[in-house]
């Protein structure tokens, strides 16, 4: 009896954690999966089992297709720029000791700002009639007349991207700075003794050593960026036209504006699958890149 208990005790001890994880992650997921096979509304969950009809509809839904393309473009562009800028800033700051505290505090400010407030700030900045961006652009003669950044289909998405870059570059900067400052000093001392140039030190030492962490930063940020919602909701509501329609916002519209919860569930599952495939691909890509750098 005692030996049996002893044998199973590790599993028993893990059981509470397993149950909690099950409840907080798997159950909602399975709920969404279940509901995606139905014609549910908010008041009638699990209404009319229709198998894969919602999924079939999703594959012919042009707005959903366009929103996925927009989402991927958004995530890739902002993440690339944020990681690059974050790394460049961190590299420039890594040896700065006196002001590093101040820089880190300043970098934290956009991160501390609630996303809705960030969106409001940028909405005011972009305003064609009273925003300071238009004001100074006209003062300096760069614009002849006011530009409606959020009202022009060609400019609205870049405008949202810019706001996102402003908010999230500090995140990449801080993580890259931490990665750079944690690198061992010995290889650099050896390189100095050998007379290596600054470029050689960067290319042969810094980059290979810091690349794993920077790629993790890219991966994290990419996955977060795929879920962009707040800036689109506050700045453009997916417009003008469908030029800033992204997957999260479209799913919100289907679920909470049209109350079509079953279809919203199917769209959510499809986005989840897409993100999982991308995350796996990026992880494999990261391993490949690291091997190359070595």
């Amino acid at each position: 009896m005692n030996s049996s208990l002893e044998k199973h005790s590790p599993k028993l001890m893990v059981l509470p954690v397993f149950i909690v994880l099950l409840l907080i992650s798997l159950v909602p997921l399975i709920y969404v999966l279940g509901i995606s096979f139905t014609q549910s509304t908010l008041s009638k969950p699990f209404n009319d089992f229709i198998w894969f009809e919602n999924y079939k509809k999703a594959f012919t839904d042009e707005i959903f297709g366009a929103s996925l393309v927009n989402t991927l473009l958004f995530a890739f562009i902002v993440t690339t720029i944020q990681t690059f800028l974050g790394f460049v800033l961190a590299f420039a700051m890594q040896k700065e000791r006196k002001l590093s505290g101040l820089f880190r505090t300043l970098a934290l400010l956009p991160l501390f700002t609630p996303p809705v407030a960030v969106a409001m700030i940028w909405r005011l900045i972009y305003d064609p009639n009273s925003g300071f961006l238009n004001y100074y652009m006209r003062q300096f003669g760069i614009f002849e007349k006011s530009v409606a950044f959020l009202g022009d289909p060609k400019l609205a998405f870049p405008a949202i991207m810019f706001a996102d870059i402003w908010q999230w570059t500090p995140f990449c900067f801080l993580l890259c700075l931490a990665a750079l400052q944690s690198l061992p000093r010995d290889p650099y001392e050896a390189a100095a003794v050998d007379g290596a140039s600054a470029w050689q030190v960067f290319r042969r030492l810094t980059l290979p050593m810091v690349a794993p962490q920077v790629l993790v930063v890219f991966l994290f940020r990419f996955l977060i960026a795929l879920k962009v919602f707040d800036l689109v909701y506050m700045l453009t509501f997916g417009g003008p036209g469908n030029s800033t329609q992204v997957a999260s916002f479209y799913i919100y519209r289907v679920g909470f504006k049209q109350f079509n919860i079953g279809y919203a569930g199917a769209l959510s599952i499809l986005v989840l699958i897409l993100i999982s495939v991308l995350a796996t691909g990026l992880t494999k890509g990261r391993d490949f890149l690291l091997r190359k750098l070595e």
Partner: protein
Amino acid sequence: MKKLSVVLSLLIVVSMLLAACGQATPAPSTGGPAATEAPAATEAPAGKPYEGQTLNFLTIQPHNVAAQNLADWFKEETGATVNLIVVPYDNVIEKAVLDVTSGAAQIDVVEYWYPGLGTLVENNVLENLDEWWKSKEAELKFDDFFEDYRDVLTTIDGKKYGIPYDGDMHLLWYNKELFAKHNVQAPTTWDEYLQVCKTITEAEKGNDVYGCAIMGAKIPLILIGTFLNRLGSYGGTFLDADGKPVINSPEAVAALDALVAELPYALPTPSAVAFDEALGGWFTGKVGMVEFWTDLGAMTDAPDASVIGGKWGVVALPKGSGPKAKVVASLNAGFGMGVSTTAPNKELAYKFIEFVARPDIALRYNTVVGGIDPVRKSTLEDPTFIKFAGEELVAAIKEGHKNLAPWPTDALWFKLQEPLTDNLSLALTGAKTPKQALDDTQAAWEKIIAENK
């Protein structure tokens, strides 16, 4: 593999059971239960009979001041505390539905945007008030409500689910100073509107002053409202008398053509202009005309609110052209107030809507700045209101009531308004022609209606 299937099946069953436990959807309410639960029409006991009790009132952010006034006045009279649950105006329907369907059941009284009334009724969010209306009709003078508001703000399939609270029709506001400067008159047709807008914009080139502000941001309430201002006046409608879509009718296409033609002369850029942007232009004297609700005069004249206090004029919306053209007032927005089926304090909730429905309270909340527009005929005739709003506004409101153009209130409307919003936005940006945008909307609507038969 077999084990995995068993585990997954069990998990699905568990999650569905948990979901079922979370559903606290009440049975559809009928006139009967509501009537028995509604307090009798008796005189309130002396003192403050509801002292110590609380009521949760779901309201929208633009009506926050008005709601706080109601809360204060109600507390003065009954002793009850009203907690405001304030949400953005475009989230109020989903918040009310979720409160009931999720089982949260925190809200007693719902202030609802009337196009969402069908959705609220379909989801059993609101108590049926038929019996309550009958019992209170004489005492609260329901025949004093404007007939058009009395039905469209409260009624689905002939049954009452709320009281009229905010009569939000659009009128055309103009800046008298700018009009005098450019020697133009308030337009009576959309063709004249275009000419006036063009005249001012071109004459003020380089001064950041524009003939008109057109709200075209891609938000259903805003964009469809702006379109309906033209659609109704050209004689078009969203649906015909049988509920069939007629959104690509010649009148509708002409209305959207007119809207698109006005865009180049409007405050830049209509696709990004929502309330804040339009009001910013209006208050700073940078726009000549704006289509807005009837409380704009009071907002403009409020101390330090604008540079054009007392310098505005208001008329009914311009008329379209063509055989069906007429002067209309679009009921863009408009709010009713109802009792939640899962109200924690139902008796107090009924007391609160009774309080709000009283003619004296209506006059009180219509004569302070708070964004609430008159729903009672007596308010419009009252000298206090005429002094507060001005005779010009009162005349424009009366003109508007001759032909009110409301939004549909059917439960399907929330599904229908999304493709319309998308396509209008595409037409405004030039990605689709007006005809193409409305043809695509018609096709989308026919599909949605067929799917939901």
